[in-house]
């Protein structure tokens, strides 16, 4: 780290965010913004090709191709026998990513090969994302990587070009928020329920302008998959960056991964990573406390991730809204979702279930949900998909026999990619159909024009698939 980093550490107590930010400053512009070094740049099939074209047009080289990694995830088909280029527009984008990566000396994890998958699944899984690293990607869910004690956020096409050309980013320093999750997790409550309930409580714009650190005893006990789920959805509360201090759970999970440091370097790295914690007296611009014991398994009813309630609750009634604008927003969301004001959400019939996305498609997610599937059948009118987050997740799950548990229950076991979370590969929910999805956004039209999305955890999603409707509580076996 730079000398100014060591000096600052002695001067004043700092938050995890401050330590990560300070250690990447190349030039401090003195106006609250800085030029920061980018340690890992992940490039995908939607963001990469236009940025490569821009660079080509301007005759700019890639400064540090060895710190840049690419994979096609958004437009690839998830069909079990896919090549990846099935769709009308996929072929050109995937070819553009392959060609740009080859020409620029960027390592590509290609379709059906080890290492391929959703960028936010493969970065941590391959050990590319490391504690203390600054990770950028042309995708808003890049906040995911903060779960390892990294500083990570999503950027646009022009910024992708800037990072390729300069290995740096110009960024305004955000304010700092800490969300402390205390208390005891109730049975059946997963990381997904925690983050949905937090967003519902604080609001979809509550994190705008902030970097959010998730902390406290509940977070400290979460496994890495759970931490990745929480940081993944920081952007759904408006926070470009979410992060969690790295600890032994992080280091044990990371050790031995394909690109993680080895030997003496591993020990040196871990020693430096142990300093990546918020100092006891460091100040945040905003502090929030959440009692985990108040959170039950969640499901969204509307068209914003903040529209989340417990399974046994009723959807809101615009008549009880605090103001006219909120009443209108609730009424519009209910109309789009085909729900009546004040009705119980439980019992609402569903058509589709999607288990996948950068939020909930890791091996731990698939194991947890499979335990609730064993010996059951998907309701006859429901089409349920499982889309593993990466090729490595797919292969590991198949070695454990998880694919058979799902297929014997009537789920479709598919190939890795973003798939129906965003429908960039034409895998969509039909107009008017209702889908319980483990993804991250229930926006109007997100899963297809007219599609009705209910966000939930993998365990809730499988319970709904089996019941054929939104369940009012989890079956006893899934809360054991």
């Amino acid at each position, binding site marked *: 780290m730079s000398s100014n980093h060591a000096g600052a550490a002695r001067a004043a107590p700092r938050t995890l965010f401050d330590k990560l930010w300070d250690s990447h400053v190349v030039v401090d512009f003195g106006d609250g913004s800085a*030029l920061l070094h980018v340690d890992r740049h992940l490039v995908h099939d*939607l963001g990469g090709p236009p940025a490569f074209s821009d660079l080509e047009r301007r005759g700019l080289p890639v400064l540090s191709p060895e710190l840049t990694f690419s994979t096609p995830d958004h437009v690839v088909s998830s069909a079990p026998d896919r090549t990846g280029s099935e769709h009308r527009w996929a072929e050109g*984008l995937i070819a553009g990513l392959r060609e740009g990566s080859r020409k620029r000396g960027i390592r590509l994890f290609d379709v059906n090969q080890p290492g391929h998958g959703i960028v936010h699944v493969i970065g941590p899984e391959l050990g590319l994302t490391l504690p203390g690293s600054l990770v950028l990607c042309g995708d808003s869910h890049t906040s995911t990587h903060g779960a390892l004690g990294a500083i990570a*956020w*999503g950027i646009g096409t022009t*910024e992708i070009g800037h990072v390729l050309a300069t290995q740096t980013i110009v960024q305004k320093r955000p304010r700092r928020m800490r969300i402390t999750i205390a208390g005891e997790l109730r049975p059946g409550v997963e990381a997904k329920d925690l983050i949905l309930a937090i967003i519902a409580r604080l609001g979809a714009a509550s994190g705008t302008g902030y970097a959010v650190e998730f902390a406290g005893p509940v977070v400290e006990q979460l496994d890495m998959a759970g931490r990745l789920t929480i940081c993944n959805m920081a952007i759904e509360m408006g926070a470009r960056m979410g992060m969690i201090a790295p600890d032994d759970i992080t280091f044990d999970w990371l050790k031995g991964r394909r690109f993680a440091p*080895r030997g003496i370097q591993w020990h040196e790295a871990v020693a430096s990573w142990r300093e990546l914690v918020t100092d006891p007296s460091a100040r945040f611009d905003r502090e929030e406390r959440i009692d985990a014991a108040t959170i039950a398994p969640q499901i969204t009813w509307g068209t914003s991730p903040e529209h989340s309630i417990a399974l046994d609750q009723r959807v809101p009634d615009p008549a009880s809204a605090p103001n006219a604008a909120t009443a209108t*927003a609730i009424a519009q969301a209910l109309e789009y979702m085909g729900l009546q004001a004040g009705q119980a959400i439980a019992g609402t019939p569903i058509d589709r279930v999607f288990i996948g996305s950068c939020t909930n498609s890791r091996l731990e997610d698939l194991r947890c949900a499979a335990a609730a599937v064993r010996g059951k059948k998907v309701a006859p009118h429901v089409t349920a998909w499982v889309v593993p987050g990466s090729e490595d997740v797919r292969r590991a799950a198949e070695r454990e026999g998880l694919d058979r548990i799902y297929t014997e229950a009537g789920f479709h076991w598919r190939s890795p990619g973003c798939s129906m979370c965003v429908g960039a590969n034409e895998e969509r929910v039909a107009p008017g159909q209702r889908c319980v999805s483990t993804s991250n956004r229930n926006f109007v039209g997100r899963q297809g024009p007219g599609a009705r999305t209910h966000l939930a955890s993998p365990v809730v999603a499988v319970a709904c698939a089996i019941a054929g409707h939104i369940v009012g509580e989890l079956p006893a076996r899934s809360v054991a």
Partner: protein
Amino acid sequence: MKKVSTISGVAAPLPLANVDTDVIIRIEKLAQLPREQLGAWALAPLRFLPDGSENPAFVLNQPGWRGAPVLVSGANFGCGSSREHAVWALQGMGIECVIAPSFGDIFRSNCFQNGLLAVQLSEADVQRLLAFLEEGRQRSQPARVSIDVATQTVRWPGGPDFSFPLEARRRAALLQGLDEIGVTQTFQAQIDAWQARDRASRPWIWDVEGV
């Protein structure tokens, strides 16, 4: 980037909170079309009816507001994905400035990369402006507003000017049409020195051969 100093024209009221980037431009449009053609599909779920025809109730489809360069909307405008195509799509339909109480952080960054002016006013000021514009709409009378980057003010016919915050770097980039890559490359020596130091202190970041 082109220079932006003042924007004047009809302001269209869109009193919705959380207008997200999926609503601004659908994923398959950005995957399929060159950026110059995205304008035809901007705000599609609001602008078109399910049968594909224009929604006559949507403000930008109405005579007097069609082609308006200023959009005034609710909080958290542009929340959601990082797709810069959302900015290109709005620009493609003629929008030069969006006024809202707050913006998605990534969308706001993308706006400034393309000279789309994202003007943040207080919730109360936006509500006053929206009420004024909506009232004009009832009378089929579009109102013009004028946004000045140098003075960071919004001039409107309904009252005293509003002022808005803007980082000095952003303002200079807009007024001078600066290209961020070009500016950053003037710091190439600092970038090289930072990387050389980092290779020594954090070799694991640079040793990415893998196994």
